[in-house]
């Protein structure tokens, strides 16, 4: 009973108060009503790396050594070959890999990785997906993950010499970035044994040698 009277009294008091004062509601500054965004403690996303090892700068930011490759030589960048009559699923998966390559070229490495993982999920035997996932990880500076994917890529691309050379060069680049110069040199040498004119392998080998020497001083 008392509470009821209290309500009535308060209501009357407030009505009296409001009838004579206060700006129109519409003219008052708005108050935030959206609930606060709670960001739980989760591992952060890796920041996209800006490394472009083939553009003349080394991974650690030091200028890359002059290329020993004769002018005019070009790093082979094989297009993704599709055999005639390839299974439709492989064609679709490789088309996703192609899309990811474009993203890689435009520097969107995380997006490229997402696309490549879809490509691999669609066709687990797509050899190019394995290789380009390794490239994405390399660009994102996840060198160990890149090496792991190169292991998988070699098992499915090892039959194809140009692609094997590519995987070996990338292996060398990853090892070099991790400061493991001896195995890096071994990877470049193996690449050169299969393709003596490979400019990336030459460049990597020279750079690994110089870094190794610099460290030994």
């Amino acid at each position, binding site marked *: 009973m008392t509470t009821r009277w209290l309500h009535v009294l308060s209501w009357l008091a407030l009505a009296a108060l409001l009838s004579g004062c*206060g700006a129109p509601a519409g003219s008052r500054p708005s108050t935030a009503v959206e609930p606060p965004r709670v960001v739980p403690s989760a591992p952060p996303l890796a920041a996209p790396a800006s490394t472009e090892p083939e553009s003349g700068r080394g991974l650690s930011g030091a200028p890359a050594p002059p290329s020993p490759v004769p002018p005019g030589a070009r790093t082979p960048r094989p297009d993704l070959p599709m055999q005639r009559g390839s299974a439709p*699923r492989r064609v679709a998966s490789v088309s996703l890999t192609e899309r990811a390559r474009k993203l890689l070229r435009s520097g969107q490495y995380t997006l490229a990785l997402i696309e490549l993982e879809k490509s691999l999920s669609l066709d687990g035997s797509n050899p190019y997906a394995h290789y380009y996932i390794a490239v994405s990880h390399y660009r994102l500076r996840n060198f160990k993950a890149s090496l792991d994917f190169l292991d998988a890529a070699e098992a499915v691309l090892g039959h194809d010499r140009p692609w094997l050379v590519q995987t070996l060069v990338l292996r060398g680049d990853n090892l070099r970035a991790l400061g493991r110069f001896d195995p890096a040199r071994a990877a470049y040498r193996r690449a050169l044994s299969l393709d003596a004119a490979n400019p990336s392998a030459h460049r990597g080998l020279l750079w690994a040698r110089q870094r190794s020497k610099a460290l030994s001083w």
Partner: protein
Amino acid sequence: MKRGFKRFLIRLFKITAALVVLVGLAGAGLGAWYVSHLSEVVKAKFEGRKWEFPSKIYADSKIIYPGMHLPAGEMREKLRRLGYRSSKSQPRTKGEYRIYGKSSVIEVYLHDFRYPLRDFRGYPVRIALRSGTIQRIQRLDNSDVLPALELEPEVVTGFYDRVREQRRVMRLEEVPARVRKAVLAVEDERFYYHRGVDPVAVMRAFLANVRRGGVVQGGSTLTQQLIKNFFLDSERTLERKVKEALMALITEWMYTKDQILENYLNEIYLGQNGAQGIFGIWEAARFYFVKEPEQLTVGETALLAGLIRAPNRYSPYRSVKDATRRRNVILAKLVSDGIITRRAYERALQEVFEKRKPVRLTNSAPYFTDYVKNELAEHYSEDTLTAEGLRIFTSLDIELQRAAEKALSEGLARLEKDYRHLRKTAEQDDLEGALVVIKPQTGEIRAMVGGRDYGKSQFNRVAQAKRQPGSVFKPFVFLAALTHGSAQGSGSYDSTTYIEDTPFTWAYGNEEWAPQNYNRSYHGWVTLREAMEKSLNAATARIAQDVGIKKVREMAYRMGIQSRLPLLPSLSLGAVEVTPLELAGAYSALANNGVRTHLLSIKNVLDRDGGALEKRNIRVKRVIPPRVAFDMHNMLRGVVERGTAQRVRELGFTRPAAGKTGTTNDSRDAWFAGYTPDLLALVWVGFDRQSELGLSGSSAALPIWTDFMKHATSRLPVTDFVTPPGAAARRARRPGGVVAGPARDALAQTIPR
């Protein structure tokens, strides 16, 4: 006397006046305190967390492509589950589709969808089919031919707390003006002219109720309705009405009309979809019309506004007739208020609500979602999961999940029918099973069935049950041999190496262990391949003894077994306890050329605004050399072609496959782990309380695996396993390099050198 009485009266008056003033002051003070208290309550609600948003778990998206077998019926069902609506003409708005030309053409106007790190803007596509196979996918807006098309992922379930509210919040400027006006016209036409309580409406309602002799009309403003929904119950008492009015006045004093309207449009209850309540304009538009609010027609807008009073009574899912009648009433009101033109009114009257069934959000993979929830619990609190509206993208394949559930439940029922002793026992130990499906190259868990009936038992036998693997463990012994060779210096092993399959005793410490073959028959000298194909215990134990049990254990750990394994000779025959999930993960390395994949169930986690909280990558690790992996894999192919799993072929599965059966010595567990180049599946059958099963892996688990695989791979092209570089023929030889006779040559296989 008179003077004294007068003085007394004056004193009495003074005392009374003082008392009145005191009581008045006390009342005003109390009133002020109460108002201030209510202001705090209102402020806390308006400026704090108003609603709980359940996090949603999504299955994996589906990629379709030319050459894929996808009959129109299946596509229709998929689109229905994704919330697309059928149209009779070419789809013109997002979310519409039509199938025509004797089911040979599907046109879909794709929804917008916020993928991790990418906002997809829907566009119209045409999918041409011939005999249920996609011939061509073409965009209709720019005529581009697409090599593949990604359909957005399906929602599997939400994480709910006590209340199951479905709601998506809209800002007021996102709500179409027509919807706003219609709601105000129906619920509170003087909204912009009162201050929370509308005396005109109260009087009108009072008169109407007196006239009708009962409560037929309410005088509550929209603000009062909001306050009631936010804070109060629906009890009709004077006390509650006063409190409601008071709080409405406070709210109007503290917040703008637009803020109040926005909250109202997001808060309002608009119906029920099974256990889930539909709240807010966005969710209602989606639920009733499969549209976004800006896509609603005039008629649909009118019904939406009309639903507020009694959502379940006027729901078009309940009665199209009642819904149409209600819509017409609202349309009449809208035209009389000048909100719509007479022409729009007449056109809206012609609209027909289709009789449809709501898409129920039922958890189609409860064991998997429990597993995901456990994984998420490492980083996110229960409160975050039930209230913060996270979007969790997983590896689940809905179609494979359905196939797995069907294969397991039908398989177990078949076993109970064929073997009487498996039916319910006195101790109520029901026959149980588990099935898990993994993509070997990515580690994605594509399906998980942790038991026969989630309603009865939520115990996830895939991830939680520790059971003896029996012979399914043998490949780890063979891998240790192929990798490390003999610890006794008798040379290296390959699939053609001979080993003795005869009874023997293994002495360790002060104990002895004598392994026995399954039916106590022994085969003398056999190759490793034969030992694997026939699952010979004695031969396997001899290999383990030669290699060293420590090496066997190391190999099992390297392949991904995480349970503690004792260093006992019986480990070689799987007399340890592991989970089916561990085993499946370990087998994935065999199916993937010796590269182990980390099991992946959660791929991405986004917050409610689409911000990326987490991305989990596919992770791989070479654990065994390709040569060893291929050798082992070849032996497991032999198991299916000639060995204990040849029933796979008898049951009609003809694709390239490899696998291993498993039966424990006491016949309590039956297993089959097998894979094709695309998928790995593992099946366990047994009793929770360890009753005797009395069946081998080949009789109990293998038929379920075969059933599932036949269905799961029926739409995929036949592909063979990849042979690693450097594979060459090798002949059978005795230990020490002796080449075996011509009879053994038949067993020689192509293996890598």
